[in-house]
Every structure is written in C-alpha cells, then in structure tokens.
C-alpha cells in the first residue's frame, strides 16, 4: 500500500511492521512524531507492544536494554541531545550484545540551541559499537528499520537508522508500506539463544577481568566485520520480496566519472541532481552515497573510486581539531589502495544551513581548479 508520510512516520511504520515488542522513548524535536504515532499504534492495539513512557532518553535506552536481554524486540528513537544523554548506554547495548534498533534524527548539538540538521550527534557516537545507516529517503528509512532488526538480531549488534532533521523527518514523500505477512516472512521473531530468565540463571555483564574482557571485544569486532556481507545479502533478499535493494552504498553515474562526490544522508539526492546538471555541462561527475557508516564499507568504496581522477567528500559534520568525519574515513579506506588519488574534504551545512545543487557545483569547481587540496578543510558557505 502506498501512503504519503513524513520520515518520522516511516520510522514508526518500520517499527510496527518489524513487530517491535517493547518501545521506550522520550520526545525531542524533531523526533516527536515517531513516538506519537507509535503511542497511538500501541493504544489502539494495531501494534502489540509495551510502550514504556520514560522520564528521559537515558532511561529509554536502559529500558530497551533490559527488555532486549529478556528476549524482546525493542525499538526507540531520539535525536541530538537525547542521543548524547544515552551515550554510556550505547556502549552497554553493543558490549552487552543487545540488538536494539533506534531511529536517530540528525540534529545539530547545542549550544546554541538548534533543531536543524547536521550529523555531529550520531557521528559522535561512532565508536560505541553500533551499526549506523544514513538514509536518503523516507522509503529507505522504513525499509532499513526492517532490515536493521534482521541484521542486528543475527549479529547481536545494535543498529541506528539515521535521517536528516526536517529534510526527511518532516518531509512528506510517497512510501510503499509493505504487507505485514510478507514482512513476517522476511523477518522471523527474535529468539536469542541466551537470555535473562529464571529457567536458566546467568549473570550478564558482571565484573570481567583482563583475562576475559579482551576476547569479548575481539568477538564484537569479528561479528561487526560480518555485517557488510550480511547487509548486502539481506538487502538482496529484501529486493526479491519488496523490489528495493538495501545496500552499503548507492552509486550514481560513478562508473565513468572523473570526479566522484561522496555524500551521506538526504544530501545524496541533492548531489544526484547536481551530478546530472554537471553532466549536461560536460563535466563527468558522479555521486557515491555512503549509506552504512559503521561498519565502514572499505571494499566497495575502494572499488567504486577506481576509475576516478579526483574525490570530493562532503561532510555535514566536523571532528574539531581534525576533519569532517566521512572525509577522514574515506581517506583511511583509500590509503595504500588508490595510488595518490587526490581526496578533497569539504564541510558545509552545519546547523541546518541549506545544501543545494549549487553547493555541489561550487565544490566541483573548487576541485576541478586544483590538482590537490591545499587546505585541510575546505569550507563551503561560511559567512564571515
């Protein structure tokens, strides 16, 4: 069934179709509609779940962890300050191998208060052991929630499904809402082999000496390394059943491109428009949208840029004292594999400043005019 829905509701429908059993969440702009719709779904019993109306995001995540450990499928959603408040528990989720799925609406961190999009909230959590999926359409948001449950539960690693504030969260798009029966076929119930139950008493997460801790983390990484292949496999299965592939990256006219613009999130669609316009002007540009940031898809990125002469990475985030974070990661993936291919790092759109096709044209022009980047960070659109 096709519906015109906002990105936030795409998250809610994803959680509903995924048959989340315990939901605990706390409102924050621009996420509120996610939990409002889920509350309604729980109230009218169209979703058979317990909704714990907690007093903070911190408690939201804590409740999800308890429920997940008891063997229930859990979902929450947040944004910016709420995600930061959860930080300690994000480690608890991955370290405890609890496959919680969470929606995060990318919103800039205060101060000054901002409710508009940038990626510093979720990227600040990159080392917490969560998988991170950056979506570029409402359809992709809904589909990815369902896929995330499947991948997370197989690997016992939590997932964050991420969408831009307003550009996706509050924008209405046509979304195909899959049939529940088919989703059930795709996504079997969560049934962990070990869980918290008096039938078989275990102690989870207790004092762990240097004799054991190291291996637990090694195993987490080893499972994380299986994720790229599993995401592609489950993405293909999804395509077979629902007609939409869910992969690690999305390529647009990359194959013969001289210049590849690397983006993430909703600006991917803007980049595609810019690429098409640039092509008309005779500039062989392409767009590589990185969807999965953790685990980082090294292989596929190395292969995607093979024929290119230059790379421009566009970040809507910053690691202060360093670079944009996608730029860092792309460079590290290419190091030793790309024969000195110049990689330019651009930062733009912080705090929700618009990113338009002309932003990408400016980026393209800068890149074409230089052999190599001269600056560590190339700022686009700063008004001083």
């Amino acid at each position: 069934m096709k519906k015109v829905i906002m990105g936030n509701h795409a998250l809610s429908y994803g959680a509903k179709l995924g048959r989340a059993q315990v939901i605990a969440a706390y409102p924050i702009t621009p996420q509120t509609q996610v939990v409002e719709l889920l509350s309604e779904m729980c109230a009218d019993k169209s979703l058979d779940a317990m909704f714990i109306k907690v007093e903070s995001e911190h408690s939201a995540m804590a409740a999800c962890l308890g429920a997940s450990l008891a063997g229930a499928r859990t979902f929450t959603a947040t944004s910016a300050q709420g995600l930061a408040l959860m930080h300690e528990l994000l480690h608890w989720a991955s370290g405890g191998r609890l496959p919680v799925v969470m929606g995060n609406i990318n919103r800039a961190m205060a101060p000054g208060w901002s409710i508009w999009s940038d990626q510093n909230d979720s990227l600040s959590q990159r080392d917490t052991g969560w998988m991170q999926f950056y979506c570029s359409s409402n359809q992709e948001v809904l589909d990815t929630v369902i896929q995330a449950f499947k991948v997370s539960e197989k690997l016992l690693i939590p997932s964050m499904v991420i969408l831009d504030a307003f550009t996706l969260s509050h924008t209405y798009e046509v979304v195909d809402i899959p049939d529940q029966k088919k989703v059930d076929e795709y996504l079997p119930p969560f049934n962990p082999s070990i869980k918290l139950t008096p039938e078989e008493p275990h102690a989870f997460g207790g004092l762990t000496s240097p004799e054991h801790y190291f291996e637990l983390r090694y195993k987490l990484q080893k499972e994380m390394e299986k994720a790229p292949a599993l995401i592609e496999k489950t993405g293909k299965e999804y395509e077979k059943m629902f007609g939409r592939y869910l992969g690690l990256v999305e390529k647009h006219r990359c194959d013969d491109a001289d210049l590849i613009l690397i983006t993430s999130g909703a600006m991917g669609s803007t980049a595609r428009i810019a690429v098409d316009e640039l092509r008309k002007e005779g500039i062989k540009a392409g767009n590589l949208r990185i969807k999965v940031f953790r685990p980082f898809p090294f292989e596929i990125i190395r292969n995607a840029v093979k024929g290119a002469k230059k790379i421009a990475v566009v970040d809507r985030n910053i690691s202060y004292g360093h670079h944009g974070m996608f730029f860092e990661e792309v460079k590290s993936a290419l190091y030793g594999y790309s024969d000195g291919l110049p990689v330019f790092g651009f930062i733009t759109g912080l705090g929700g400043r618009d990113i338009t096709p002309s932003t990408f044209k400016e980026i393209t022009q800068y890149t074409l005019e230089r052999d190599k980047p001269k600056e560590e960070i190339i700022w686009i659109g700063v008004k001083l």
Partner: protein
Amino acid sequence: MKKEKKMKLSLPEVELMNSGHMACQGCGATLAMRFALKALGQKVALCIPACCWSVIDGPFPYSSLDVPIFHCAFETAAVSASGVKAGLEMVGDKETTVVAWAGDGGTFDIGIQALSGVAERNDDIIYICYDNEAYMNTGIQRSSATPYGAWTTTTPVKHFKNRPKKDMEAIMAAHRIPYIATASIGYPEDLVKKVKKAKEIKGTKFLHIFAPCPPGWKSQPEDTIKLARMAVQNAIFPLYEIEWGEKYTLNIKLKEKKPINDYLKIQGRFRHLTKKEIVFIQEEVDKKWERLLLCVNGSK
C-alpha cells in the same frame, strides 16, 4: 509412641546464595541479599547496578547467586528492571518477579531520576536499596544517605558530613506507590515478611534495608548484627511500612528508645564527634522519631 519434635525454622529454608562470593567479613549487604532471596524464591530476575554487589556476586564467569542477574549501569537500576519486566511479559513470562537491587548511592543519588520515573508510572517491580550509608565500592565516599556527623573519605574529620541523611521514604511516599518498607539485616524475620509481602503486590514496591559495612563504618565484623539491631532500638533506623504513601505502620515498637551513644561509640566513622555534636544528633533523631510517630498515629 512419642511424638517427634521438629525444629521450626523462622526463615525459609531455600538458599539461593552460595559461598564463594567476594564480600568482606561481616558484610551487611550480603546478608540482605541472602534473606531477600529466601523470600523471593527462584522465580526472580535481578538488576544490579554498579555497587558493592556488582563485585560481591563474583567475577565472570562465576556467580554466587542461583538467579539471573542483569548487571546494569549505575544510574539505571529501576528502569532496567522495568525494561526486563516488560520484555519478560512480551515473551510470555508473566510470573517472574523483577527486582532492582542497588546501593544507597545508586538509589538516593545517581539513580533517583530513573527510580522516580518508575515509581510515578507504578511499574510492576520491587526496588530494594541496601543501605551502607556511603559509596563503598569506590572506597567510602559520602552519599546523600550518609548520616550527619559521619566521616568518609570525601567528608574528612575536619569537615565531616554536615547535612542530614536524605529522607528517601518520604520521597517515595510522595509518589503514592502501593508499598514502601524499611527493613534491617538485624531483623531477618521482619525483612523476609516484607519482601514476601512486596512480591504479592502489583506496582512499584520500595524496600530500604539497613546494612552495616565494617570497612566503611570502621566497625568490627562481629558487630554488624549488633549495630543493625541498635539502629532500630535507638530509632536511628526505625522499621516501618507505608502503604499508598499514606498509611504508616510501625513494625518494631520501642518500649524504651535507647540513646544513640553506644551505637556511635563502636564505629570509627563517628569517633571525632564531640559531646555537643552527639547531643545535636540525638535531638535530630528524637525529632525524626516524633514525626514518624505522628504519621503512624495519624494513620490509625
């Protein structure tokens, strides 16, 4: 034929706590757990945040308890339990009693927000705070449960704790939850009775168990039970229940309320106190006792 005389135990025989745990000698917190589990039985799940008990249970892969444990983040005991309860219900287990088991720091201080949320929603869990009146896990720092006058490593003798112990029961009573009780390892029958009672009630139950700690209180391990009983007898830690935030019941009545001197004297943490300060503490204890009696009598 002669009738065989059977010894009657005043506590349930079941033993869900084993030897091999990591507690200090004379640890009150350990006794609290042993007695509580006797009352709770096997169909229970514990959420234990950072505290002495996250060590006492034993290091991975060992556990000294025969019940499942979720070792959770310091400030999350109450809501972790809510999450576990919801999760268990959704996977078809409606029987298991879920218990948050936290220290005074995890309850009075860092965990109070999550606890208040759980109590306001009246989530169906038992919250048990074992109170050793300081952060013992991290080496005896003051908490808001540390009593007036006590030494800790962050309230050194020259600057001892100069604020009263937080009245946690009053805070919980303000949430109008079905059941609140204080208990003591010095009165195990009363403790077991209260835990059993809590188990039968739906909603949020809050139990506060007094649990002396020899290294933290600078007391002798063999005085642990004595101290726990003295604190009840001198009304420093009276044993009572509050139902729905209104109905107060005193469980151990005092024929003769003892002075606090002897209690303070056998604990190194109070050694620095002058006569004047002891008189002040006595006055405060008396006032608090009178206030409690007013509530109890008002409930009749």
